[in-house]
């Protein structure tokens, strides 16, 4: 039946060939990005197929829900809607007030940006990388470096785009760094992932830095990738040990990274400080200036309090001063 002496090339030769090919791939990894993008496009139907059982389960649990459950859910949603609309009224008022104050100060106004809801197709079952795959790709205009948030806070950024899908690097990945600031006192820091889904760390924090447990960290917009002001994490622990040159600060991401299903893709408005892929980079210099100006502006007490209450719904983006009347559409509306 089976040959005892294997003819053709020997196993040792095959293994050597496999090892050489793998090492070549590993070494050339960074140069292979375009190839990889095409390959992911080819394989994305597999990802859709793999997410089908889960989707079918969701569908069946939705369609077989009892009347009682639906009524309960409906009631809860109505209650939430009432709360939200009340908050929205207040928010609308505060937004206008904020814009007027900003116009008075001559500092950049906040602008709405385009957003799109995306569904998580796949979560990487790889212990060393924190990725999720979304069901929108370059066909929907997704680009590399695009910020991704959920209802609670920042989720991460797009690192790889194929035709129909895109891959998001979560902010808890060891290779992810995010410039943040503390809302309480505007101290700037960088939040690094630790490889744990529910923990990020702030590195190189001087022991004398004014940082406390419970402080809210928001994006500072300094990396030119994330718009300013999205909530990121809450400080969990501040450890100052003798003999260590820096304090050890850990924080818990606000986004529920272990159970994300729907996320928002954000297109920063073109005249914000955030650099889009195919955009001339000439005005970058005065943009960073205007961003500095907005930072100085946000130190005033009146602005600070309004920013506190409207945090989850604002989509702030620094821009050259524009008349307040131009931005009238409610910020919570999802375009598209």
């Amino acid at each position, binding site marked *: *039946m*089976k*040959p005892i002496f*294997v*003819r*053709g090339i020997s*196993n040792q030769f*095959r*293994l050597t*060939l*496999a*090892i050489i*090919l*793998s*090492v*070549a*791939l*590993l070494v050339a*990894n960074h140069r*292979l990005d375009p190839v*990889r993008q095409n*390959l*992911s496009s080819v*394989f994305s139907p*597999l*990802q859709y*197929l*793999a*997410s089908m*059982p*889960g989707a079918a389960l969701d569908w069946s649990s939705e369609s077989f829900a009892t009347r009682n459950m639906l009524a309960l859910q409906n009631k809860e949603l109505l209650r939430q809607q009432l709360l939200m609309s009340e908050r929205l009224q207040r928010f609308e008022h505060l937004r206008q007030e904020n814009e007027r104050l900003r116009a008075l100060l001559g500092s950049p106004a906040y602008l709405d940006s385009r957003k799109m809801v995306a569904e*998580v*197709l*796949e*979560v*990487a*079952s*790889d*212990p*060393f*990388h924190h*990725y999720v*795959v979304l069901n929108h790709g370059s066909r929907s205009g997704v680009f590399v470096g695009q910020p991704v948030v959920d209802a609670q806070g920042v989720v991460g950024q797009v690192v*790889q785009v194929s035709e129909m899908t895109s*891959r998001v690097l979560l902010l808890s990945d*060891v*290779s992810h760094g995010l410039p943040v600031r503390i809302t309480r006192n505007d101290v700037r820091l960088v939040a690094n992932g*630790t*490889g*744990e*889904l529910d923990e990020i760390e702030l590195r190189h924090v001087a022991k004398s830095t004014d940082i406390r447990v419970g402080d809210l960290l928001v994006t500072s917009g300094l990396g030119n990738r994330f718009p300013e002001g999205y909530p990121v994490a809450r400080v969990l622990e501040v450890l100052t040990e003798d003999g260590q040159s820096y304090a050890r600060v850990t924080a818990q991401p606000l986004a529920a990274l*272990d*159970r994300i299903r729907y996320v928002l893709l954000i297109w920063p408005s073109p005249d914000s400080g955030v650099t889009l892929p195919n955009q001339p980079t000439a005005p970058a210099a005065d943009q960073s200036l205007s961003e500095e100006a907005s930072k100085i502006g946000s130190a005033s007490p009146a602005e600070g309090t309004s920013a506190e209450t409207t945090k989850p719904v604002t989509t702030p983006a620094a821009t050259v001063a524009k008349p307040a009347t131009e931005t009238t559409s409610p910020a919570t509306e999802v375009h598209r």
Partner: protein
Amino acid sequence: MSFQAANGRFIVWVTLFIGVISQIMPLPSAVDTWRPDWLLMIVLYWSIALPHRYNILTAWMLGLVLDILLGATLGVRSLAMSLVIYVAILHCQRLRNFPKWQQSLVIMLLICMYHLVIYWVEFVMQEAVFDTDLFLPAISGLVIWPWIFWILRRVRRHYKVR
């Protein structure tokens, strides 16, 4: 290679395809750490049963597909998988004749080796955090291997795969 015509090639690729799909299927994170390495075990079965047909280069290719789908560094899983399959093919005669429990233990060790190789390569390529959760798939693999073996042997005999 062998002089016999290949038989039942299609059904083997169907099982491998199912392996790939179950490897990337989204699962709740509590179950996810226990996800057995379906693809690795299926490739292991075929390379133990038919080493002259499904061998190191098949494993290398499937590892590469997995790397692309998981968005990992290209070449990590293909390297780990080809090493594991090489060891399995070296001992395929012995593995076939082992009692079930002994076979499962060896498979568990091979799965551990697979994860260790992945960890080492990732560690060399970039920062990777070692976590003993790494070996949970080996334990679930230990439990599941006899079933996979049984099902795939039924498949092999039914379709007369050679």
